[in-house]
């Protein structure tokens, strides 16, 4: 019984190593969508994640501060265009998060 409880505790403690920055549902969605493309613009990510403009901006700022994404602004004609790209660090972090979660669910 104790052994079983210890095993469960070990499984749960593995969750502590999970990257909390990615673990937030909104940021996880952003990272997952950016992971399958080279880069994407703001509108594309906003449509895919169903986040509002302000919400997405705030999450992207958090991810940019962690150097998981790069945000570049350009003008196409007179219109502003924001391009978002997952950095190598972000890609690695996402893969690591994915592996961690996979291990956790496999142990359950």
């Amino acid at each position, binding site marked *: 019984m104790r052994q079983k409880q210890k095993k469960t505790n070990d499984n749960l403690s593995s969750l502590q190593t999970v990257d909390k920055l990615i673990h937030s549902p909104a940021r996880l969605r952003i990272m997952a969508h950016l992971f399958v493309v080279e880069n994407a*613009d703001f509108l594309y990510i906003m449509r895919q994640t169903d986040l509002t403009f302000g919400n997405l901006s705030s999450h992207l700022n958090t991810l940019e501060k962690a150097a998981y994404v790069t945000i570049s602004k350009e003008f196409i004609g007179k219109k502003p265009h924001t391009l978002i790209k997952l950095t190598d660090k972000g890609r690695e972090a996402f893969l690591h998060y994915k592996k961690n979660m996979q291990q956790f669910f496999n142990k359950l």
Partner: protein
Amino acid sequence: MNNIIDMKKLEKNTFLDTNQDGFIELILGIFYFGIAGYIGTKTFPILLIMLPIFAPIWMKLVRNKFTYPRIGYATPKNRSTKTIIQLVFSYLLFVICFVIIIPLLININNIQIWDNLVQIMLGIATFILFAGIGYITTSLRYYRLSVLSFSCLVIVSIVEFDDFRNSIELFFLLMSGILMISGIVLFINFIKKIPINDMEDVHEAETKKNK
């Protein structure tokens, strides 16, 4: 985790979402029309075959105007782009070899078997192309097109022609008609369904105003 976030499904959805404007169908339709025109007239429509080859350039211009302001823009991964380009070019090369180069190099008109073989080969190639895209993208739209190409093959096989070239011409005409119509319908639906989203533009203006 793969079950929670299915990355492959996400990649397929990205492809489908960025190609929901019907341009793939339009490009293939123009290409087939060019082939049919070339077989029929042996003159200028060969230029139409060049249109799909330069598609990345003119498609970007058109999509900048109509598609990206509606759904946004995403660059597919280099790996996916390479695979798609390799697949499309192999197919285009196969069709061009079969329809234009081989008949020019060999006086194959005398061989009766060519008459039936060419239709079947082209029908199968088109069927495989659409079924392949359907399988990769899990989109019903491409499976429908593969069934349609098979139907066109059956129609062409039933009708009797004096010259096998006429049967190929009819096959390409039928396919180009179907593809172009479906491309246009998809494009009109896309324009109607999704309005231009200038939220980023509005937000930028508001930010400037607040400053």
